[in-house]
């Protein structure tokens, strides 16, 4: 503890102490030196003063914080006497305050009862040499020394040491003297008080150190608590990387557990220490004062690997000496794992984003190339997306603020006709978005800037719902029907032309047939007239002549049938044609005992030739009737008419409208079904070819061929289903033209 320097100083001090003791009794010196605490000094001092023969003595201490003065030790002093010394530094009228301020001992006359004088001696914390702290910190601003060398007026603010921050003490020793005190008595008193102050100064310093030590203990235990309560391992190492202290969290890795000392645990601790030491060394080599490093250690108890981020900072003593290294380790296992997961998710997200981007590009390409205007609106019926064709009609969507209500660009920049278009669209979108239907079709008249005309667009809309079932978006596709209409018109015209051509062919056939007809009539009659007059050898020839003539007659009759009608192309009511035809054949059907069922729907008008369609129906009805003809054994044809019940079968004529997607157009379907003999499967394939017949010599084979031609010319579809012995169904679909 003592340095050689200090010893040299104390040698110098010794003779002074010897010299001072000359007037002080050995007993007093011994008592004072035996005192162990500062507060023992003043009682001893007053006792020794009274022991010297003075009647009474007291010590009034100055509170150097508040400046108040009050007695702290007294002998033979009644309370009232003591109260005289209850004062304060600023009460200058009090004689002892004057002495304290001047810091000079003085004899004050007539202060004690009975007119006796008092001796007042101020004492303050002082010392001849600097204290340990000032010494160690190599500072010489020690308050004790300052007070020793330059006794000044006592000032409160000066009585705190600038080195050790210690507040000094100050007091006045008051002794009542006899009426005539001797010089020796005063000197004796002065020496005793000085000696006491000398011991007091030392003990006061010791007390100060003791208090300081206690404060430090508290601080240390607080720091320990802080350190131990840290969940992260904290290690303090010396310059050789040896552990000075560590917290419990660190012991888990660097100390063999006391309860279960296994070989594995010992090896783990050894490994951890090596790794830690290596990490510290490499950090030291890297040179920076603060460094961090990743370190994988093994949890000795759990056996798991834990990834730490070790952050080290050197610690210094107050005089700037490097005392070691504090390392705090943070468990980043979870953090790193989370980090890795985040990175993996990020790359996955990027991939997904790329996919979505590609999808979106593809979708945009599709939308831009659809060739029809497309409108996407949000759940509040605000337009959010338009394809280029849609932009032509409605202006652009303000892309910086989609769906903010402004929708397309500012109105003043647009053609008023475009605004009108938008108003029409918005009104439709609002209706659709807040309706209960999820799909809608309709039409809208819009101004088309390209052709500078108003055009009717066909409109189809659908809703996209979000997860809560709310409308997220609506998509509307417009179709320019004018182009479609033109095409339709063209088709219709072509069809009309075909019908006309067919009619012309029919007329030609009719003209030829008519010209052939009269000679045919004569030939036929002539053959009839020859009946019975032919020689037996010529009868075979006569039969051929008769049979073939009849066949030619049938063909001529059929061909005349095509021409028999006036040819007018226009719109007509199919139901009227059906009724006409059935009326025309009513008698024949009734005679054949055929029950007719009609099931006629409400139909839109058909465009074409009513006469040709009548021809179709006639041919089909005649075929049906013929297929249901009663067997020859059933007697003559006339006999059937007498049967009230319909035994000859059933003819069903049924039609209905098959609406198109717009609900109006589409097709008209006509079914003609019978319960007749049906057609063989092989026959069906060629049923619509010319000169093919199931009726043998009675048929011309032209009926279905003509039916097919007419239906084709009308842009219709013709289908037949038949089962031998059960019946036949003809299905005709005719287009409804706008």
């Amino acid at each position: 503890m003592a340095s050689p320097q200090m010893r040299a100083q104390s040698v110098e001090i010794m003779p002074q102490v010897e010299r001072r003791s000359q007037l002080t009794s050995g007993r007093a010196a011994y008592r004072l030196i035996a005192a162990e605490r500062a507060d023992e000094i003043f009682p001893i001092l007053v006792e020794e003063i009274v022991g010297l023969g003075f009647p009474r003595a007291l010590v009034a201490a100055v509170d150097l914080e508040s400046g108040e003065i009050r007695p702290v030790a007294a002998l033979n002093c009644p309370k009232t006497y003591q109260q005289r010394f209850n004062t304060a530094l600023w009460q200058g009228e009090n004689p002892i305050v004057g002495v304290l301020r001047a810091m000079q001992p003085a004899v004050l006359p007539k202060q004690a009862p009975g007119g006796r004088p008092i001796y007042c001696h101020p004492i303050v914390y002082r010392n001849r040499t600097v204290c340990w702290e000032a010494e160690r910190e190599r500072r010489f601003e020690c308050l004790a020394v300052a007070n020793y060398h330059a006794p000044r007026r006592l000032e409160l603010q000066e009585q705190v040491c600038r080195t050790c921050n210690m507040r000094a003490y100050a007091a006045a020793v008051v002794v009542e003297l006899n009426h005539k005190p001797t010089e020796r008595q005063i000197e004796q008193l002065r020496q005793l008080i000085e000696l006491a102050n000398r011991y007091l100064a030392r003990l006061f310093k010791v007390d100060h150190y003791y208090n300081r030590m206690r404060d430090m203990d508290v601080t240390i235990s607080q720091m320990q608590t802080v350190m131990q309560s840290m969940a992260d391992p904290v290690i303090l190492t010396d310059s050789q990387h040896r552990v000075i202290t560590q917290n419990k969290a660190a012991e888990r890795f660097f100390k063999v557990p006391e309860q279960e000392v296994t070989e594995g645990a010992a090896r783990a601790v050894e490994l951890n220490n090596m790794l830690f030491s290596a990490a510290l060394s490499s950090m030291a080599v890297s040179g920076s004062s603060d460094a961090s490093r990743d370190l994988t250690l093994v949890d000795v108890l759990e056996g798991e690997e834990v990834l730490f981020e070790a952050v080290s900072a050197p610690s210094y003593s107050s005089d700037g000496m490097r005392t070691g290294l504090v390392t705090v380790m943070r468990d980043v296992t979870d953090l790193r794992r989370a980090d890795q997961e985040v990175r993996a998710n990020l790359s996955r997200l990027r991939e997904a984003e790329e996919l979505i981007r590609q999808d979106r590009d593809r979708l945009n390409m599709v939308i831009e190339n659809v060739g029809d205007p497309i409108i996407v609106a949000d759940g509040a019926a605000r337009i959010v997306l338009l394809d280029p064709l849609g932009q032509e009609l409605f202006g652009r969507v303000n892309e910086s603020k989609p769906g903010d209500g402004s929708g397309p660009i500012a109105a003043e920049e647009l053609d008023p006709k475009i605004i009108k278009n938008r108003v029409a669209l918005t009104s439709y979108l609002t209706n659709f978005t807040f309706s209960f239907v999820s799909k809608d079709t309709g039409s809208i008249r819009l101004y088309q800037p390209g052709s500078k005309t108003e055009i009717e667009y066909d409109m189809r809309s659908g809703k996209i719902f979000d997860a809560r079932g709310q409308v997220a978006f609506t998509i509307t596709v417009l179709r320019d029907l004018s182009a479609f209409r033109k095409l339709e018109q063209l088709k219709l015209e072509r069809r009309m032309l075909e019908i006309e051509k067919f009619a012309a062919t029919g007329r030609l056939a009719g003209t030829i047939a008519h010209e052939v007809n009269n000679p045919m009539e004569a030939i036929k009659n002539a053959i009839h007239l020859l009946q019975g007059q032919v020689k037996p050898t010529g009868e075979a020839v006569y039969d051929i002549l008769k049979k073939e003539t009849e066949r030619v007659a049938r063909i001529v009759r059929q061909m005349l049938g095509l021409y028999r009608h006036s040819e007018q192309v226009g719109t007509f009511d199919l139901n009227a044609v059906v009724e006409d035809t059935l009326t025309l054949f009513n008698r024949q059907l009734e005679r054949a005992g055929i029950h007719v069922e009609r099931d006629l729907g409400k139909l839109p008008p058909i465009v074409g030739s009513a006469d040709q369609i009548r021809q179709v129906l006639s041919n089909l009805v005649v075929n049906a009737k013929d297929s249901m003809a009663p067997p020859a054994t059933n007697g003559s044809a006339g006999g059937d008419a007498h049967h009230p019940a319909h035994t000859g079968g059933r003819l069903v004529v049924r039609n209905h409208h098959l609406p198109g997607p717009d609900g109006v157009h589409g097709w008209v379907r006509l079914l003609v079904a019978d319960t007749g003999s049906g057609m063989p499967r092989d026959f069906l394939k060629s049923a619509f070819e010319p000169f093919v017949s199931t009726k043998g010599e009675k048929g011309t084979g032209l009926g279905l061929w003509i039916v097919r031609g007419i239906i084709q010319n009308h842009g219709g579809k013709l289908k037949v289903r038949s089962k031998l012995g059960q019946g036949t169904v003809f299905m005709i679909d005719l287009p409804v033209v706008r």
Partner: protein
Amino acid sequence: MPSRKPRVLIVDDEASVLVTYRMILEQQGYEPTAVLSSAEALSAVEKTDFDLLMCDLSLEESHTGFEIFEVARSRTPDVPCVLLTGYASHEAVQQAEASGIAVLFKPIDIEEFLSTIETLVRSGHGKQKASGE
């Protein structure tokens, strides 16, 4: 009148057709008057009360069988008439039906031809008898 053969007027502008009709009618026991033109037909109608008139629809110079029927009916309102035609418009057929005129389409099936004539002549006789007595 059991002895008198039913008198039938047959008009057709085609001679060969007309001849064969006449021959068939004679063969069947009728007394046919066969003429080629509407003019001849009209004069025949003026002279004779026929039991049956059979006229081709189109005659010479856009004359039609309907003219002859009209004249004949003005004399004998109930005389049965048959319109013979290779082709007939709907209007013509409707007109015939409206006037109670039977229509036979050429080429005519001989059986149908004969049965139609027989039916009509018989019904015409019935009426004439009824009106005569």
